[in-house]
């Protein structure tokens, strides 16, 4: 409108946006970067690929200073120190803890089976800890980390990112309000990679390729599926009681024994079932979780999410103006980030997809908890349970026999 007055259509769109925000919009109200004063000094333990991704997200946050990096592999440590301005390097996490008392928070991104000792030491030294998922590769280690966190006076957050992801947080409320009763769940992770990392030093081969070492690896079930299965635990509010699984080496026949393709079926006490498929031999579809309900379906893909309504489901007024995308013969309502503001600007479509990767939101929640005392997005206890589910799922795959899940107290 040239006179600056909103037209009826503008008003309707803005009103629809506001309603949309209520119904399908991720809650970004608290998602701006916290700006602690003075900056939160953070140390990174584990300078591999995930460590690099963590650094990239921490660098986006005002008020966070990456002061220290630790890795036992000199080449990886040197490479990371070359990337980050002003960080001090350590080859041993205990040296970091002893020599840098100013580093208040640690992000642990080492191989999974090395987490326990580092988290124990860091919490014992009074530091806040963000531990990548899964928490550990054995049930005992998972429980030990949860126990250490319960004794600690500092924050310990498990890196199950779905619980921090704004799209997933909104989807969690929609599962109850829009889908009504859950019918079933499907999830998948498709990548095309050997899962093998290059190592120019043969003595480091086992350390570098720990995912392919059956003595310490929890396989695709523990290392990949656990992160996605936790979304189902969170949405359903309960844990499965029984897991069946099988795995095969469908493509990477290079002498490995850890399957490159797995299928899982998880069953809940009320009969709900989750079908899971992961492979390293095909990348189609990437990583998604789909929740089927009586009144609709929610499909999640980490930075994106959609709600598909059943034709006989009640229609809400805001749906007329919601942003939609076609998926073959189905039309999905897009879960839009920050839709209230975008609707006010008449540009809801610009909000398709989150403004940051999922990892950013998990780390942002950690920084907020460490600096303000806010509750952690995923506690060590919740992380331990999700990790144990992954470990048991791997046991079902390897043993080719169903595994009963213990009741978590």
């Amino acid at each position, binding site marked *: 409108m040239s006179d600056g007055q909103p037209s009826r259509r503008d008003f309707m769109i803005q009103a629809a946006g506001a309603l949309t925000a209520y119904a399908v919009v991720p809650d970004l109200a608290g998602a701006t970067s916290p700006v602690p004063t003075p900056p939160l000094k953070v140390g990174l333990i584990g300078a591999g690929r995930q460590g*690099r991704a963590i650094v990239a997200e921490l660098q*986006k946050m005002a008020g966070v200073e990456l002061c220290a990096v630790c890795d036992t592999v000199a080449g990886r440590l040197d490479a990371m120190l070359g990337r980050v301005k002003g960080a001090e390097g350590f080859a041993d996490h205990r040296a970091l803890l002893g020599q840098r008392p100013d580093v208040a928070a640690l992000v642990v991104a080492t191989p999974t089976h090395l987490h326990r000792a580092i988290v124990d030491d860091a919490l014992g030294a009074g530091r806040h800890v963000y531990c990548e998922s899964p928490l550990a590769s054995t049930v005992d280690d998972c429980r030990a980390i949860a126990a250490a966190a319960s004794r600690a006076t500092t924050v310990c957050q498990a890196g199950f990112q779905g619980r921090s992801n704004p799209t997933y947080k909104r989807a969690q409320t929609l599962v109850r309000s829009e889908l009504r009763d859950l019918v079933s769940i499907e999830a998948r992770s498709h990548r095309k990679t050997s899962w093998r990392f290059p190592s*120019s030093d043969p003595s480091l081969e086992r350390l570098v390729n720990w995912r392919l070492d059956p003595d310490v690896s929890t396989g695709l079930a523990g290392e990949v599926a656990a992160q996605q299965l936790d979304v189902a635990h969170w949405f359903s509010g309960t844990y499965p009681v029984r897991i069946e699984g099988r795995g095969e080496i469908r493509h990477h026949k290079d002498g490995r024994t850890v399957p490159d393709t797995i299928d899982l079926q998880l069953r809940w006490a009320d009969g709900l079932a989750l079908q899971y498929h992961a492979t390293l031999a095909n*990348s189609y579809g990437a990583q998604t979780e789909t929740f089927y309900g009586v009144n609709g379906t929610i499909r999640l893909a980490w930075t*994106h999410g959609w709600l598909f309504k059943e034709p006989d489901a009640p229609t809400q007024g805001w749906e007329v103006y919601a942003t939609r995308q076609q998926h073959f013969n189905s039309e999905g309502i897009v879960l839009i980030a920050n839709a209230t503001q975008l609707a006010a600007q008449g540009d809801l479509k610009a909000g398709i997809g989150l*403004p940051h990767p999922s990892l950013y939101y998990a780390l942002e929640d950690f920084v907020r908890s460490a600096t303000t005392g806010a509750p952690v997005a995923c506690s060590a206890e919740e992380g331990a349970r999700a990790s144990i589910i992954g470990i048991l799922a791997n046991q079902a795959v390897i043993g080719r026999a169903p595994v009963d899940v213990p009741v978590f107290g």
Partner: protein
Amino acid sequence: MLLATAAMGTRFELTLAAGRSHDLRAAGEAALEEIAIWHRRLSRFAPDSLVSHLNREAHHRAVPLDAETFALFDDALSVWRASNGAFDIACAPLVTASGFAPSATSAESGPEPQRIPSPDTRMRARPSPRSARSTSDAIELDRTRWTVKFTKPGVSLDLGAIGKGHALDCAAAVLVAHGVTSALLHGGTSSVVTIGAPPGADGWRVALAGNWDVGVLTLVNSAMAISHTDSQRSASGASHIVDPRVGGARGPAASAVGAPRVVVTGPSARLADAWATALAVMGQIPDTLPAGYQARFENGHAT
């Protein structure tokens, strides 16, 4: 061994010539992952990319960068200065005004929204040349802190003319770090970087389609980029190369179908990429082309 991934709206391929197969594949996959990382970081269409983050945040504060990204920006600004503004990473508003939409291609980043504007949307979005101008003089790099900040409103980054080369340079560095001594990497065939030479050969031979004074280039530990205005056009027929100096797709190389193509060779694919775009806009080879880089136009054309 041939490995490939889809990224930056095109197909990247790696040809690895020698080595133990498991190790070679692992090194190649690490190189592909490097390309995927830069795809995710440099896309201006993906809202969760680093470039999108900078386009939102660097107007308000100095944002820290890692060493590789800082070096990328440093090189981009050096080419902007040396080309007298013919290459400019602050040209996103101009590219948008030309009607270019994101590609749906992604590197394991999941579904990517397609926001192809309708013709009428493009017409509305197209600003006048002068209002669309934003230049790299508003990009401030702090060498002591490795930060970037925008000092004028309206700056919006598009690294499409340097991103492929940068990703290839980084991927090649990964291969070298893991002991690969012979490889050719390319992005969409228009950006190439080589490591060593194929076994038994004196170099990687790259044929140029068209009418060039040298039809085949032999590359050894060097890079190549080719840029021309007909390679990509929007639905409205606009060239994907815009002339930042005049505020639109109206430089010598962008003015007409059939404008001369240019190929640049040199040590870095990143710089070759940027200079190929700069020269396509300029239509001539300036004295400021860095030492170690050669450029030639198709049909020997250079004005």
